[in-house]
């Protein structure tokens, strides 16, 4: 075996063609699997039935994918042609792609393929069991009809709800997580034990925590009992609150306490309901520990010499916290805020288990609505509409995270 000198101009026809054909075929197979035909188990009972359906509805979709697949195939073929002459490179390339193959197949089928399908279907009327029919932008328009027609305001109200959710939950959980991490970062005995105990709520499934909280929030539950005894200390009487069933909004209650009134037609001025805020508290309880651990790891990476120098200069602990700790934590704060926003905009489990979107739709969320529309929980199945909602939500998430990243990066420039 001797080292071959690389000859860039030589054309390795056979491996290039094999690469092109195999990539093209695999990508098209994945596309056919995800082709926008009617769904349901019957479609794939026989190959002929399936291809009839593909021919009937999916040819434009497949044509677009085929062009993409051809381009990717060509790029790959050119690359193989380039590396083929060099034994070491050829070996690394083939091993590399062999090792990546399982990941690529899974992600192309279950992530990229299904996303393309969902995008295509979001322009169609689709109930799984019949052929999709083209409706253009109607599904997207439907989502925003609530602006003019208040009977169709579900999606707008769901967005309104999760916006409040993000605005309240993200800052509070970030703040609490930093405080707890700072508290745990001091040298002390029993650190591991405290860290483990603090983290326990994040390990347990959200279903378990939500069910326990539904029980705690009952009219005769521990939360009311707690308020009852606190109020009792001051000689006042606590009126029992139906935590998960109370639709009164935060702003509404403030206005009503001042003698005003917000009619139900102006629901968008009422603020988050008591039920919704009760779910927020529960969510904060489960997410704070995860973020605390991230902050704790970041704190341990800060050079202790910084604090020593500052304390020699006579800085107080508070100054050190705001001038050293917080600026050093900036990248992690950014990450936690972005992760928190992505998570809060997609709340589902808590809503499904605790309130089913009620009372008066004040805990309805986009993902819960998508779930309902896609499975036809309240009426017929609207897969196309549900997909359109999912894409609108995705765009909102992208915009939010982009703005937050920019904002926090700008904030860092000062230091």
């Amino acid at each position, binding site marked *: 075996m001797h080292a071959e000198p690389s000859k860039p101009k030589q054309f390795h026809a056979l491996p290039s063609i094999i690469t092109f054909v195999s990539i093209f075929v695999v990508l098209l197979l994945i596309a056919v699997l995800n082709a926008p035909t009617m769904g349901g188990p019957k479609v794939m009972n026989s190959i002929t039935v399936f291809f009839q359906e593909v021919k009937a509805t999916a040819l434009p979709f497949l044509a677009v994918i085929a062009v993409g697949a051809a381009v990717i195939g060509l790029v790959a073929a050119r690359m193989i042609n380039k*590396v083929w002459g060099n034994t070491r490179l050829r070996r690394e390339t083939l091993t590399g792609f062999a*090792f*990546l193959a399982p990941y690529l197949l899974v992600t192309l089928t279950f992530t990229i393929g299904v996303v393309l399908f969902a995008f295509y279907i979001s322009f169609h009327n689709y109930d799984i069991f019949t052929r999709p029919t083209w409706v253009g932008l109607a599904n997207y328009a439907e989502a925003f009809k609530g602006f003019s027609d208040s009977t169709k305001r579900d999606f707008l109200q769901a967005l309104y709800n999760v916006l409040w959710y993000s605005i309240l939950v993200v800052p509070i959980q970030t703040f609490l997580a930093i405080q707890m991490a700072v*508290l745990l970062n001091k040298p002390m005995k029993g650190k591991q034990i405290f860290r483990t105990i603090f983290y326990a709520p994040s*390990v347990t*499934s959200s*279903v378990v925590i939500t069910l326990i909280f539904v029980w705690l929030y009952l009219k005769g539950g521990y939360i009311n*009992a707690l308020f009852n005894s606190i109020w009792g200390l001051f000689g006042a009487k606590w009126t029992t609150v139906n935590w998960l069933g109370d639709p009164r909004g935060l702003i509404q209650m403030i206005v009503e306490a001042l003698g005003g009134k917000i009619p139900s037609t102006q629901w968008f001025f009422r603020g988050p309901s008591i039920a919704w805020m009760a779910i927020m508290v529960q969510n904060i309880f489960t997410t704070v520990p995860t973020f605390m651990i991230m902050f704790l790891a970041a704190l341990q990476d800060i050079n202790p010499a910084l604090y020593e120098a500052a304390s020699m200069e006579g800085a107080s602990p508070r100054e050190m916290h705001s001038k050293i700790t917080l600026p050093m934590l900036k990248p992690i704060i950014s990450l936690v805020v972005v992760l928190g926003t992505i998570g809060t905009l997609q709340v589902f489990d808590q809503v499904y288990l605790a309130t089913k979107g009620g009372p008066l739709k004040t805990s309805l969320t986009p993902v819960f609505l998508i779930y309902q529309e896609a499975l036809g929980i309240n009426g017929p199945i609207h897969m196309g509409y549900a997909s359109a909602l999912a894409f609108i939500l995705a765009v909102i998430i992208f915009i939010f995270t982009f703005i937050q990243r920019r904002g926090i990066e700008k904030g860092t420039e000062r230091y």
Partner: protein
Amino acid sequence: MTTQAEALDFGKQANKEARQKKTVSSLLRYLALVLIGLVMLAPFILATVGTFKTDIEIIAFPPKFFPATWHVENWVKVWNTDIGQGGTFPRWLLNTGFLAVTVAFSQVIFGSMAAYAFARLSFPGRDAIFNFMLGTMMIPGAVTLIPAYVLMTKLHLINTYWSLILPGLVGAGSIFILTQFFKSIPKDMEEAAVIDGASHLQTFRTIILPLARPAILTVLILQFQSMWNAFLQPLLYLNSPDKYVLNVALSIFQQQYKAQWNYTLVGAMFNAIPVLILFFIFSRYYIEGVAYAGIKG
């Protein structure tokens, strides 16, 4: 002489004051820590005690912390309850455990292969694929939910475990953690092995994998936990009681026994205890995993 003694004395006193101040502040800190710890554990403690109450005690107001008599038989009863079509807690525990273990191992196997390619091999297209992978991590789960469900109906995979195993075979998150870890392993040993004529598969198996044990354990545990705690996908894909996983079963169990919170809480404990035990044993790896995904992300 006296001044010196006075100064010394003064110094001692100042030292003492500072020490006192330090003890007070550390006492306060312990107090805060114990309080937070109590808040964090309170729901678990209340629920655990609640499992031993009668159905009347559990919703009585004001609630009493301890039950009049400890009804251990609640646990036995829930363990033996069949909600129909073979849906029992032992069965659900088995289903959930099987799925979580399968997915965790396949994530480690396929994930570490991909991570080896990203961290150790150099070939054209590697960085592009890595960036593509980071990009896919940005896609919100809500978008893939519906079309994945349609795909599963077409493939006849609804109500089979394949619907959860196939998409979970390998994921960007695991690959990312493993890639970062592989990159931090020094290359000396592999170079020696390569000179001895070892293939990539051999170096991967005999050198990288043994050295990466902590990262592999971390991924194993994180993936086990995330499959154990998954809710929306199993809720969509599995629809017969003997196929349910614990989370889905628990939500249906609660619907059936709405008034009997003591039973629902026992069910919740069956769900929580295995993960909590695992967490207390492997807490170091859990915490490292969360920190790793955060810092290096």
